[in-house]
């Protein structure tokens, strides 16, 4: 990233290779649909390119990219809030099936699908602040200090938001019949 910030355009491909997988996953978690995540990801890279001179040598470029991605996502969300547009049904990113079930009986698949729907619904319902804090701490495994820097807030606030998100996810899953001490429906 330091070389790219100095103006070496030829290292872009290398930089893309390093940042893209986690940055894309982060965008997928932020956005409501795969198409929206793609747009967010592309715009983030473009903004990262335009802002490359602002990169501080020695800083973690991934966390800097996360902060830019969130800024892009919030700008887009504000834009669409001002200009609401009714789109057709789209495939939600969380609907694509990440949970792998060992026992692939029809009942188990239905249960897994139900839990997926519950998770997707709960993640989309919670506030953006709680969701992002949860993603950064629990899924991207940032420390509270790093997540606080990315979100521009305090470590305590990040921990509280992530905890609230975790509690609401757990409550939703319990209501849907999942138990954290075993997958048998309660």
């Amino acid at each position, binding site marked *: 990233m330091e070389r790219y910030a100095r103006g070496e355009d030829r290292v872009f*491909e290398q930089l*893309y290779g390093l940042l893209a997988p986690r940055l894309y996953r982060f965008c997928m978690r932020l956005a409501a649909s795969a198409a929206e995540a793609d747009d967010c990801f592309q715009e983030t890279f473009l903004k990262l*390119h*335009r802002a490359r001179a*602002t990169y501080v040598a020695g800083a973690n470029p991934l966390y800097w990219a996360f902060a830019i991605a969130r800024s892009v996502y919030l700008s887009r969300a504000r834009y669409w809030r001002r200009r609401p547009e009714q789109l057709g049904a789209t495939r939600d990113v969380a609907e694509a099936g990440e949970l792998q079930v060992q026992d692939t009986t029809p009942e188990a698949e239905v249960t897994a699908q139900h839990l997926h729907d519950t998770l997707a619904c709960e993640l989309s319902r919670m506030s953006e602040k709680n969701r992002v804090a949860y993603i950064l701490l629990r899924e991207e495994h940032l420390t509270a200090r790093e997540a606080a820097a990315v979100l521009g807030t305090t470590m305590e606030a990040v921990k509280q938001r992530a905890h609230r998100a975790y509690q609401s996810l757990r409550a939703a899953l319990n209501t849907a019949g999942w138990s954290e001490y075993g997958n048998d429906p309660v």
Partner: protein
Amino acid sequence: MATIPSERLYPRIRAAVEATPAATTRTRTRIFAALAIVPLLTAAVVLIVSEVVYGQPTAGLRIDVSSVVAMLTILGLLAALAVASTSFALWQGRDGLGIGSISLVSIVALVVPVYAALTVLRPLHSGAADDVALTGVAISPWGLRCLFVATLVAVPALVIFAAALRRAAAVSSSLRGAALGAAAGAWAGFAVFVFCPSGNLQHLLVGHVLPIAIFTLIGAVALTRALRP
């Protein structure tokens, strides 16, 4: 769920990046330039305007000053306020994401009251200079001339700060804009303190303190988009 970007995205991103120009002057260089230019600009504006209006370069520090020690103390504290608020508002931090939102809120919330406490609670001037007979210059109780001087300092300062941090605030950009506005206001406040010998409370509040609050608001509104990546 797909967690790697589709291969069709890369050519699109690559083409967009190649077609988009990007500045290569490092932000740190621009910040150092801003930290050097704004004090010089402030000094130049004060010296010129004070010479034009009062016939002497630093009228606020020479006319109707009750105590030289108090004057030097307040002058030093106001300079420290301007330098500190500017440095914190421009600071990028080791992550390149700037100082936290609580520190930014502190700058935004503290600059106006600290300035008012230093200059209004116990004014340095008795108010004798507000009489035309002493200086030969009519000083408006509404501080219009000081508002003008404050604008002459704060507007270029705000533009310079925005240029220094252009596209550099990925986090809390509105708060960062407000903090930069407060810093520009602090320089404007320093300038009118050096320029103006008035001790009239209304004049001090409207002509000296109000511009700082106004430029804090302007910074929050006008700088946000320029500061975002």
